[in-house]
Every structure is written in structure tokens, then in C-alpha cells.
């Protein structure tokens, strides 16, 4: 007996029906054919006759497939067809506003069908839009997360931030005593909480390896003030607000899940931070990352943990009026508005100025709505323009994408002239046609937007993952939320309108209807039509080239800035041939004496490595964010009246300045004997001498540490280095002599004659030999270290470069398309020119010349726009050149070259190939 199931399966081809439905049909038909065959056999028919009888039941399999497709409920197309028929007749019957209501769904269906029938065009358009909208949604996500997203607290309107302004009226943090005074203001706050934001600590995770985590020190009132409930455990107690009290931690929900596997028995366990034991008493609110939007705190620590975690720096932090560490988050009492609260705290500020003039004179206390503050009011003002710049940049990419699509849609529109002409002839109004074309564009926009959201979601994940690698001071968390979806949706509609409107209006222009009805347009007609067409297309080309130019110039400027910053004189002999290993012996449980001998041994062995010229150590290298100290300098007091100054500080071993080639300008540098001198001798940078004493040679001058009584004597003045960032202006810093055991974490630096990365590897190997359990914090060459500090600029340059390249690619595709279309439409003209004796080369030159003129206009506009935009870009990246002739020249040349190729290729292809043949045919 034949295998009927196979027989049916081989013949039945049903498009558009769900596979399981199709399977069922095959099975059922086979079962029936088998019955027929079986019955015939039972009636005495031969095998062949029985088989033939069964086969006769289905003779036209294609007809059966099409019948089944129409009958099956899972087939989409027949239902769409039916729906469209219904809508068509409803539309035809309707008049006035109802006609619109009836027409819209019909247009949507027509549009879907049209787009489905042109998968090539549709997928190109969707990809272009996905990139354009995706880039914007991703940027919006970043900007919104950091700058605009509402705070996650209940009754956020009651929450305020209180800042203390400095002499320049910049809002900054308060001292702890000031916070205590604020909190005790009667009737203003129901509660207020002090917070030390944006700190990091080295946490020993479950596997025993140290990792950098983001921490925030908060008072016991913090979680009650936020109004957020902890996921587990408790918040801090007042005993834990005091130094000397039991050190307590609340772990973030995120870290609890990611690092501790949501351990239900976490409460009461001990977390280790740089040797300090802190008890975990709670798990933070789910999804809450702390006060800075976009930044995720890993641990909230009690003030009692300050001493253990910060060590010697922590002393007196809660007592001194001069230590401005604290942000204040307050919840206003019922019925109190911000203005009343402001009056209350201003009152306090004048009382403080009277009671403690040395700390509070000229300072004020300012209340801000918590929702208006992201980092600090001061910083916010400088970040907001950066947000605008970022959005503008991604907006340009979308502009290029939209103009590009507009050209494409326009070209398609011309190809549809016939269809449009017919529809106009049978009574469709221009409005009907425009609406139909616009609906198609909007559908494309929405499809592109949906894909764009995926792009944004993906880039959010990438940014979150990369942020750690960027060594940003922020623990960035980005997720696509409702606001991003709404943004992408609106952007999709806008994009659809943007690239659809002009082409829709143009191809339905009744003035062109005459030429549409006549397929054999005259040369005259084609020439006038062309002039108009190039007009609109020309604008598209100018816009694309201009926007690409702006993006490329911006990317070029950033690349230059990064290059220059890397080559910047660090005061450390351009960081050449210097390698270092920074290790944390404290982490491995070393006490002072053992750490001292470990680092001394390490330094000695490194000194013995081949080619090493000089070795030293420091607790902080150049181009590193580190600590500062509050100093009292008589000269400063006399000259400006300022009580104290805040100056950066590094502890360095003898031979440090020689090793890093930081020049000695006056006096002397440290000797080995100085290393016991601790805080009695100092070397200062030229910038420090000039800023606070007004001259370079300050050898023999003294200053005091705030609250200290022993004067520190300056023994030498050295050249400036880049203290925190490569782009900074000369920053004062002073140095103290350091013995290797003074800090558990130390960087050993060495200068050699060989390759610095080989030296760095050798240094690591030496440390591993001495003790493999001592964690290496950072190791490599000084050049690497500087490069890492530039990672943010690099990332920005990379992103802009990517946007620029994308824009250039789109512009090139656009140019190609336009030239190709122009050639096709101007077949007659080209033919006549050739008949009159023009060589193909002349024709190509003519076509390219026309396009390049547009490119030149666009490029010029782009250059002017880029020059205007450069200052805004400077707000994003420090040290960016205002304008840079070489960058502009390179970018212009690149753009011109790409444009030339993109227009020459299709012109040549058309003239040498198809067009010529077509002309000959005529």
C-alpha cells in the first residue's frame, strides 16, 4: 500500500498556515485517501486501480491548497484580504469625517501588505531607522537616567536637599555639626539624614578576593527619611551613628542577589572592608541604588564604620566644623514649603556665622527640592548642557537616517507614479493618496522604533557592563523603562512623518499629474521635472552631508583631545619607561611591620632586575583621584582671609621624584632619613607655592594641618604633575615622606632602560614570588595608567566616531541612490548628449559634478555648524580644542573622497552599462 501521508505531504503546499495546522491537514487527508484505497481494494480492485481511484479524489493540489488556505483560521493573509475588502467598501460608502475614520485602518492594511511585498526595501529602511532611533533612545536613556528620571521615593515633594554654600556661593556639602544643627531645627523637618556620597571601598567578596565597591555612609535617619522599606533586616540605630559604636552595613539588594546569591541568612554576617569587619544588618530596598540617579551603591555603612574602613582619615570627621563631607536629605514637616524651610535654615546660617565666624562667615545654607538635584546643584548645571549635546549628536544621526529614507521613499514614489496616476484617475483625492503614503512611512517608523528599542536595551546593557571597565567613579545601572519606550514611540512617529511627508506631497503633486499620465515624457518635460526633483533631493543630500560633517568633526576633535592628553607632559618625563605595581598587603592581613618588610623586599628585588635605573614607592601616583588635606597657611589668611585651604596630598618614598623625573626646582627632595619624619617635612609643587605664597621659592615656609599644632616645614619645591586628570590645569599638591610600611596599599614604581611593560610584568612576578596572596590593585606602565584615566573620553570619542561613521555610511548610500536614480530618469537627456558627441567620460563628469556641488554646500554648512557646536562639546570633554584646522581638513578630505566614490560609481556603471544599451535601443 502506498504511503499516503508522504503522498499528501509531497503535494500539498500551503503558504501562510500554521505548521501544526498543516500537519493535521496532511494527516487527515492521508487517512481519507487510505480509506478510499482500502474500500476499492475490498471491492476487488487491483492495487493500481485502487490507487488511481484514491488519486482521482484530488487532482489539482494547488487548488486544494488555496481552498484550504482560504478556509483555515490560522492563515493571516486571507483574513487581512477579507478585512480589507470590508474596509474598502466601508470607506467607499463613507463621506466626510467618517471617510477618514474608515480610511485609516484600510490604509494601515494596505501599508502592511505593501511593505510585506517589498522585503528588501522594508528591511533596509527598518535597519536604518533602528540604528537612528536606537542611538537616540540609548542616549535618551543615559541622559534621562542621570538627569531627569523622577526620584524613587514616596511623597517626593516633601524631600529636600540642604547645601552649604562657600564664599563663591557654590552649593556644597555640610559639616556634621552643621547637620546636627539643621536636624534640630524645630518644625522644619520631620527628619533629616546626613550622607557621605560617592565613596568606594575594597570589599572581600564570598570567594575571598577583594573588589572595589561603591559605598555611602549614612545616618540612622537615612532610610526612614527616604520612606523606602528595606527588603530585609533593619536600618541603622543611633548607637551606630557614633564613632566607636558597632560597625554596621546595609547591603544593596542588587549586590545581595548578584554576589551573595540572595543568601537568606545574610543578616548578622560579617563583611570585610580593607581589613575592617562590618556586620550586615539589612538588605537595601529592592531596585534602589542610592541618592545619585544612575549610580548604584553597593553598601550603605553606618558612621560607626567610618573609623574601621577609612582608618586614620576618619578621625574627627563627625566633630570638625571644617570637614565638609555631608549631604543632607530632609523630609519637610507637614505644611512646610521649601520657602519656609529656606527661611528657617537661613536663620540658622546667620546664627552659625555669629557663633563660629571662622567656619561660617560668608557662607549660607540653601534648601533645594530633592527632585531638582541630581549630583550637586553646581555639578548639575555643568552636566545639563552635556546632556543636550549628547541628544543633539544622536539627533544628527537620526536626521541623516531620515533624509536618507526620504530620498529612498521619493525614488520609490516616482516608480509608483503610474499606480498613483491610476488611483487619481479613478477618483482618489490627493489627501487620500498622501494619507496612504504617510501611513506606510509611519508603519516603517514604528517598525524601526521597535527594533530601535532593542538597540537601546542592548546598548544599555553594554554601557552598564562597560562602565566598570571605564573606571568611572560611578557604578552605572541602565535599564530601558517606560519613559524610554514612550520616547522611542514618539520618535518613531516623528521619524515616519519626517521622512514621509515631503516625498508624499511631492509625488502626489497634481501639477505633475500631466507628465505622470504620459509614460513617454519628452526631454523637455523630463528636464523640468528633474530640476524640481533634484531640488528636493538636493536638500536631502545637503542635510546628510552637513550632519555627517558635524559628527565627524566632533569625533575628530575628541580623538585629537585623547591623543594630546596621552602625550601631555605629566611632569613625569612623559611617563616614559616607567612601570609600577600597586598592591594591597593590608587586604592580605599584613600588619604595619610585615607590610613594611614586604614592600621593602619588593623594592630591593625590583632594583636588582636587569635594566632598572631607579625605584621608589608612593601611596598615590600622578593622574589618580586621591585624598586632600585641610591646611592652615598664614600667608593665605593674611592675603584673602580664608581660614583654611584644601590641598591634594601624596605620600612618596625617597627617590620618587628622580624615578618619575619630576624636576626639583628649589631646596631638596626627601632622603631615606626623612621617612621617619612623618608630617614634619614636606615637598610642595610649583603650583602650590605660587597659589598660596605667590612665589616659587617657598623653602623654609611652614603651614599647619587644621586642628594641628606642629608646623610642617617645606624643604623643597618640585615641578607640577597632572594630579587627578590629564586635562587639568596645574593643581597644587604636597608630598610627605613615606616609609614602605606606613600604608597597607602601596605602589612600587620603577624606571628602566628596557620596555616598561616587560618591567611591569617582571615586577608582578617578583611580588607573586614573595607572596601570591597579596592582591594587585593595578599594575602596568605609567602610559597605561594615564590611558585608563582617559577611558571616558575614549569611550565618548569611540561613540562619536561610531555615530560619525554610521552617518557617513548612510550619506554615501544616499548619494549612490540619488545618482543612480538621476541617471535612470535622465536616460533621454543622456542619450541626446551622447548623440551630440559627448563621451561617456563627459557624462560621468557632468553627473558627478552636479552631486559634488551639493556635497560641497552640505560640507560647508556642516563645518560652520561644527565650529558653532565645538564650545558645547567642550562642556562634555575637558581639554577639547575649540577648532582644529588639521582635524577639519582631514574630515573634509574623507567626506569628499567618500562622496566622490559614492557618486562616481553609479554614474559610471549606468553610463557604461544599462543606460547605454537602453539608449541604443531607442
Amino acid at each position, binding site marked *: 500500500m502506498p504511503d499516503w501521508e508522504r503522498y499528501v505531504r509531497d503535494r500539498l503546499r500551503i503558504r501562510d498556515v500554521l505548521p501544526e495546522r498543516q500537519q493535521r*491537514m496532511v494527516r*487527515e*487527508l492521508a487517512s*481519507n485517501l487510505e480509506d478510499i484505497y482500502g474500500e476499492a481494494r475490498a471491492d476487488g480492485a487491483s492495487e493500481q486501480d485502487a490507487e488511481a481511484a484514491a488519486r482521482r479524489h*484530488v487532482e489539482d493540489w494547488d487548488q486544494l491548497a488555496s481552498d484550504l488556505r482560504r*478556509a483555515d483560521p490560522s492563515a493571516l493573509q486571507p483574513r487581512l484580504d477579507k478585512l480589507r475588502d470590508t474596509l474598502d467598501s466601508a470607506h467607499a460608502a463613507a463621506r466626510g469625517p467618517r471617510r477618514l475614520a474608515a480610511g485609516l485602518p484600510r490604509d494601515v492594511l494596505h501599508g502592511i501588505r505593501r511593505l510585506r511585498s517589498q522585503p528588501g526595501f522594508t528591511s533596509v529602511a527598518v535597519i536604518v531607522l533602528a540604528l537612528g532611533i536606537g542611538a537616540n533612545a540609548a542616549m535618551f536613556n543615559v541622559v534621562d537616567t542621570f538627569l531627569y528620571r523622577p526620584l524613587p521615593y514616596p511623597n517626593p515633594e516633601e524631600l529636600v536637599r540642604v547645601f552649604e554654600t562657600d564664599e563663591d556661593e557654590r552649593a556644597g556639602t555640610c559639616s556634621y555639626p552643621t547637620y546636627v544643627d539643621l536636624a534640630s531645627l524645630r518644625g522644619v523637618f520631620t527628619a533629616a539624614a546626613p550622607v557621605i556620597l560617592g565613596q568606594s571601598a575594597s570589599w572581600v567578596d564570598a570567594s575571598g578576593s577583594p573588589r572595589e565597591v561603591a559605598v555611602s555612609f549614612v545616618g540612622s535617619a537615612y532610610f526612614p527619611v527616604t520612606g523606602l522599606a528595606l527588603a530585609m533586616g533593619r536600618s541603622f540605630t543611633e548607637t551606630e551613628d557614633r564613632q566607636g559604636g558597632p560597625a554596621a552595613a546595609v547591603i544593596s539588594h542588587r549586590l545581595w542577589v548578584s554576589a551573595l546569591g540572595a543568601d537568606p541568612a545574610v543578616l548578622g554576617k560579617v563583611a570585610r572592608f580593607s581589613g575592617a569587619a562590618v556586620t550586615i544588618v539589612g538588605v537595601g530596598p529592592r531596585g534602589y541604588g542610592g541618592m545619585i540617579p544612575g549610580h548604584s551603591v553597593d553598601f550603605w555603612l553606618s558612621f560607626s564604620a567610618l573609623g574601621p574602613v577609612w582608618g586614620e582619615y576618619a578621625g574627627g570627621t563627625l566633630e570638625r566644623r571644617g570637614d565638609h563631607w555631608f549631604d543632607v536629605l530632609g523630609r519637610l514637616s507637614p505644611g512646610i514649603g521649601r520657602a519656609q524651610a529656606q527661611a528657617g535654615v537661613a536663620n540658622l546660617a546667620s546664627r552659625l556665622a555669629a557663633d563660629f565666624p571662622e567656619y561660617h562667615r560668608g557662607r549660607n545654607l540653601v534648601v533645594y527640592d530633592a527632585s531638582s538635584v541630581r549630583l550637586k546643584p553646581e555639578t548639575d548645571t555643568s552636566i545639563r548642557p552635556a546632556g543636550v549635546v549628547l541628544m543633539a549628536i544622536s539627533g544628527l544621526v537620526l536626521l541623516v537616517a531620515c533624509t536618507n529614507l526620504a530620498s529612498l521613499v521619493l525614488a520609490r514614489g516616482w516608480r509608483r507614479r503610474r499606480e498613483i496616476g491610476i488611483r487619481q484617475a479613478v477618483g482618489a483625492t490627493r489627501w487620500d493618496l498622501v494619507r496612504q503614503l504617510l501611513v506606510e512611512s509611519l508603519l516603517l517608523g514604528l517598525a524601526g522604533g521597535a527594533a530601535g528599542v532593542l538597540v537601546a536595551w542592548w546598548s544599555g546593557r553594554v554601557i552598564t557592563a562597560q562602565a566598570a571597565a571605564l573606571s568611572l567613579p560611578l557604578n552605572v545601572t541602565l535599564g530601558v523603562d517606560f519613559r524610554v519606550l514612550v520616547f522611542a514611540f514618539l520618535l518613531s512617529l516623528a521619524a515616519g512623518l519626517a521622512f514621509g511627508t515631503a516625498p508624499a506631497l511631492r509625488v502626489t503633486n497634481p501639477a505633475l499629474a500631466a507628465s505622470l499620465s504620459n509614460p513617454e515624457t519628452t526631454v523637455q518635460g523630463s528636464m523640468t521635472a528633474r530640476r524640481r526633483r533634484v531640488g528636493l533631493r538636493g536638500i536631502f543630500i545637503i542635510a546628510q552631508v552637513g550632519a555627517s560633517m558635524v559628527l565627524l568633526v566632533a569625533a575628530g576633535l575628541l580623538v585629537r583631545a585623547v591623543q594630546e592628553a596621552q602625550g601631555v607632559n605629566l611632569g613625569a618625563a612623559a611617563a616614559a619607561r616607567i612601570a609600577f605595581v600597586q598592591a594591597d598587603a593590608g587586604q592580605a592581613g599584613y600588619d604595619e611591620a610585615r607590610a613594611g618588610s614586604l614592600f621593602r623586599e619588593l623594592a630591593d628585588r625590583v632594583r636588582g632586575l636587569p635594566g632598572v635605573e631607579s625605584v621608589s614607592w608612593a601611596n598615590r601616583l600622578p593622574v589618580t583621584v586621591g585624598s586632600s588635606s585641610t591646611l592652615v597657611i598664614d600667608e593665605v589668611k593674611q592675603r584673602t582671609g580664608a581660614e583654611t585651604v584644601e590641598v591634594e596630598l601624596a605620600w612618596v618614598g625617597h627617590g620618587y621624584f628622580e624615578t618619575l623625573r619630576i624636576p626639583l626646582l628649589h631646596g631638596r627632595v626627601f632622603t631615606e632619613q626623612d621617612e621617619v619624619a612623618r608630617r614634619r617635612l614636606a615637598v610642595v609643587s610649583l603650583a602650590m607655592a605660587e597659589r598660596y605664597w605667590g612665589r616659587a621659592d617657598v623653602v623654609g615656609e611652614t603651614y599647619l594641618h587644621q586642628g594641628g599644632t606642629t608646623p610642617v616645614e617645606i624643604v623643597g619645591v618640585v615641578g607640577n604633575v597632572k594630579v587627578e586628570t590629564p586635562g587639568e590645569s596645574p593643581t597644587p599638591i604636597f608630598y610627605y615622606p613615606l616609609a614602605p610600611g606606613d600604608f597597607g596599599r602601596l605602589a612600587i614604581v620603577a624606571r628602566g632602560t628596557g620596555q616598561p611593560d616587560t618591567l611591569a610584568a617582571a615586577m608582578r612576578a617578583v611580588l607573586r614570588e614573595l607572596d601570591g596572596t597579596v592582591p594587585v590593585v593595578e599594575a602596568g606602565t605609567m602610559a597605561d595608567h594615564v590611558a585608563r584615566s582617559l577611558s571616558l573620553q575614549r569611550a565618548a570619542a569611540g561613540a562619536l566616531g561610531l555615530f560619525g561613521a554610521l552617518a557617513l555610511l548612510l550619506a554615501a548610500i544616499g548619494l549612490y541612490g540619488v545618482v543612480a536614480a538621476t541617471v535612470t530618469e535622465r536616460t533621454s537627456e543622456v542619450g541626446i548628449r551622447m548623440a551630440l558627441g559627448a563621451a561617456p567620460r563627459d557624462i560621468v563628469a557632468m553627473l558627478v559634478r552636479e552631486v559634488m556641488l551639493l556635497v560641497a554646500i552640505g560640507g560647508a554648512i556642516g563645518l560652520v555648524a561644527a565650529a558653532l557646536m565645538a564650545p558645547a562639546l567642550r562642556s562634555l570633554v575637558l581639554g577639547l580644542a575649540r577648532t582644529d584646522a588639521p582635524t577639519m581638513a582631514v574630515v573634509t578630505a574623507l567626506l569628499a573622497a567618500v562622496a566622490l566614490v559614492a557618486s562616481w560609481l553609479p554614474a559610471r556603471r549606468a553610463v557604461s552599462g544599462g543606460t547605454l544599451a537602453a539608449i541604443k535601443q531607442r
Partner: protein
Amino acid sequence: MDSFSSELKKGSMEMLVLSLLEDRSLHGYEIGKQIEARSGGRLKFALASVYPTLVRLEARNLIKGRWVERPGERSRRYYRLTPQGLRALASRKEAWRGYTAAVNQVLGIHHA
């Protein structure tokens, strides 16, 4: 005597299927055979026209099919009328009677 036009047959196909399923469940080929038997061999339907009708009627929830396995036989899909199918059949019979009566009247055919 397979001389009725296919248009004519198609128009009444659904009603024929529904009426056959009124008192018993049948599978696809049986339905075709029953039509042939009841019409005294004058109406013949190939599987190719019966089967899409079944799919269509089931999609409209007028009939419901299920696979039935009998020992020693391959499984077959049997259809029966749903309550909606029953109602649809009643109203179609009604309409058919009215329609044929009207057509007959026009054509001047009178039943005895």
C-alpha cells in the same frame, strides 16, 4: 449523471455537510459517500471539495472534529455538529425552502 455545475454544488455544499452530521458523526470520505448515496448517485463530491468545506465549517465553529482510534485501524477524524451548527442548519434549511419555493414559483414549477 454528474452534470450539476460545480457552482451550484459549491453553494449548497455547506448545508449538505451540516445536514449529514445532524444525527451522527462522520469522517471526511464517509461524508462524500453519504451525499452520493442519499442523492442516489446524482451528487458526487471528491475529497478535494469536501475537505476544505470541513475545515471552513470547523473554523466557524459549526462543526467539531476529533481523532478517533479503533483497534486495528488507522485513526480517523470524525466530525459532529456543534450547537451553533445545529442552529445554523435550521436557519439554512428554512432559507433554502423559502428560496427554492420562490425560484420554483418563478420558474412555474409546481409540486403536486
